[in-house]
């Protein structure tokens, strides 16, 4: 049995937490933007599966990681167009269309993988990039500043999203159509356009999340996400629709997962208690929310299609 509280193990745990948190964070931030505009997307997992597949396939065929990231993003964007048409243009019920997207993504990514690839083949993984100076900080540098670019991007998107929502005209539009679309509409803000763009942004980020997941792993398998997208949606609620809160949720989730794995590796958690330990991230997430007892209210128009007559 090893010792958890050695610096190297703690550093590895932190690094692992950050890696695990990256796809959650990207997807949750995207979902946050969508939800702030009043659109719930339960299809995040499906988007991620499709983008993960296309990213993976791109690396497999071209070996180009950045092209793969772009392909992941564009895949998300493309599904976003579909989702936008369904929910915004056609005002279809968001809950069910999201689940439709999820099932579709689950099936199609599996199908394409089986047809185009078949046997899992490893591809290049995202390389870690050291940030000058910062990466030299003892321990901290290794945990935080020797990560891959998508991880950096994910964390940079936290202030960026916060800024977008709180300081830009478009963010103002997003918030207003998510709270009171009638009011926004009466001032000439196009509810439809705002929501559509928010959906595109959100889905692109879900696309990036899929790319991050698969490129951190270097391999694809059917149902690679294992429901990750649903947890990402849950984390938006956990984070109370604020980018920083969402980041807290993603990190908490990643950290608990990483710690459980580390403790299993060290034998601190016996094999027989393995199952109970596996529920720790979920239980802690619920407990955290009960303790924090944040009485924040969802965007008032969340899931409500807007029609003017």
């Amino acid at each position: 049995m090893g010792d958890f509280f050695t610096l190297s193990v703690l550093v590895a745990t932190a690094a692992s937490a950050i890696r695990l948190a990256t796809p959650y964070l990207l997807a949750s931030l995207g979902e946050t933007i969508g939800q702030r505009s009043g659109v719930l997307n339960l299809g995040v997992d499906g988007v991620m599966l499709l983008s993960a597949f296309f990213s993976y396939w791109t690396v497999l065929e071209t070996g180009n990681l950045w092209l793969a990231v772009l392909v992941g993003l564009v895949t998300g964007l493309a599904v976003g167009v579909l989702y936008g048409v369904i929910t915004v243009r056609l005002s279809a019920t968001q809950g069910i269309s999201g689940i439709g997207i999820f099932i579709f993504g689950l099936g199609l990514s599996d199908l394409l993988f089986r047809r185009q690839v078949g046997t899992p083949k490893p591809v290049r993984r995202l390389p870690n990039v050291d940030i000058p100076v910062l990466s030299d900080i003892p321990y901290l540098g290794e945990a935080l500043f020797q990560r891959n670019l998508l991880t950096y991007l994910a964390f940079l998107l936290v202030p960026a999203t916060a800024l977008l929502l709180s300081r830009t005209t478009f963010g103002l539009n997003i918030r207003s159509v998510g709270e009171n679309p009638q009011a926004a509409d009466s001032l000439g803000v196009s509810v439809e356009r705002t929501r559509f763009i928010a959906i595109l942004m959100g889905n692109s980020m879900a696309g990036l999340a899929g790319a991050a997941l698969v490129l951190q792993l270097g391999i694809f398998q059917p149902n690679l996400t294992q429901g990750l997208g649903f947890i990402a949606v849950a984390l938006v609620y956990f984070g109370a629709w604020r980018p920083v809160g969402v980041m807290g949720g993603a990190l908490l989730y990643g950290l608990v997962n990483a710690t459980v794995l580390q403790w299993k590796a060290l034998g601190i958690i016996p094999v027989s208690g393995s199952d109970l330990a596996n529920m720790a991230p979920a239980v802690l997430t619920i407990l955290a929310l009960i303790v924090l007892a944040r009485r924040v209210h969802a965007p008032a128009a969340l899931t409500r299609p807007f029609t003017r007559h």
Partner: protein
Amino acid sequence: GDDAPATGSGEGGALRVAIVAPSASDDLAFSQSMVDSVNALERDVELSVTDGTFIVEDAAAAIRGYAEDGNDVVIAHGTQFGGSLMEIAPDFPDVTFVWGTASDTQGLDNVFAYAPAADEGGYVNGSIAASLSESGVIGVVGPIEAGDAVAYINGFEAGAIAGGASEVNITYTGSFGDVALAAEAAEAHLANKVDVLTGTAQMVVGAVGVAADAGVPWFGTQANQTSLAPDLVVASQVYHWEVVLEEMLTLRDSGVLGGQAFEINLANGGLVIEFNDAFELPAGVRDAADAMIEGITNGTVNTGS
């Protein structure tokens, strides 16, 4: 129509075989091992596969469907399908059901059972791993603690300890499918001085990638996993079910439709340690491994299970 024709041979007298498997048939692991094995049979076989049936009830429906469709042999490739098979097999007395991994046929005379002595290859892999490890700490990534995963991992642990490893750290991630979790489990091992890794089930593809990036040797099981890390896979214990399938089919030809249990092992050639020639083993290690295989085969080495 639903009145099933009893036994019918395929076109040109081909034997009609169906496999129902829980994961993808090209998963480089458990399911693929059976598909490869049937394809390796030296017989004229018309093969149908239903894969990805991790839901037992769906598998049961597929098994029944294949029997109804007039297949000669239906392979229920998953221990968890046994409960349903006990209901289905009696309804189709002319069909041979092949069920594994399982160590007995539960008294049904049209069911053959099969199981791998996965501990044997695990033991061999473990002992080689021990000789490659400098830290003496070896990591294992497993799915859930069940089936041949347990056998392999226990055998591996015994072999590694016998080979001089000081610690074998075992992580069961709790999932057959979560590739990311398997990868992070491998990372966790690496953080704790592990310098040789192994793992079992289809989600280990994630862990292999981690091993490959860290330059840590990997040992495979179920199927040959060399393609996952051409430089770092040392050896894979490969399941060659065809050895026992052939025996079953021969029995069937002679009118015995089931009732016997089979095991693949190193001795009968059903388990084969396939070395990766691209990985250069230190001198003597390969010889020691061959000797150990020999020892297990003739019973002089005990894998501890």
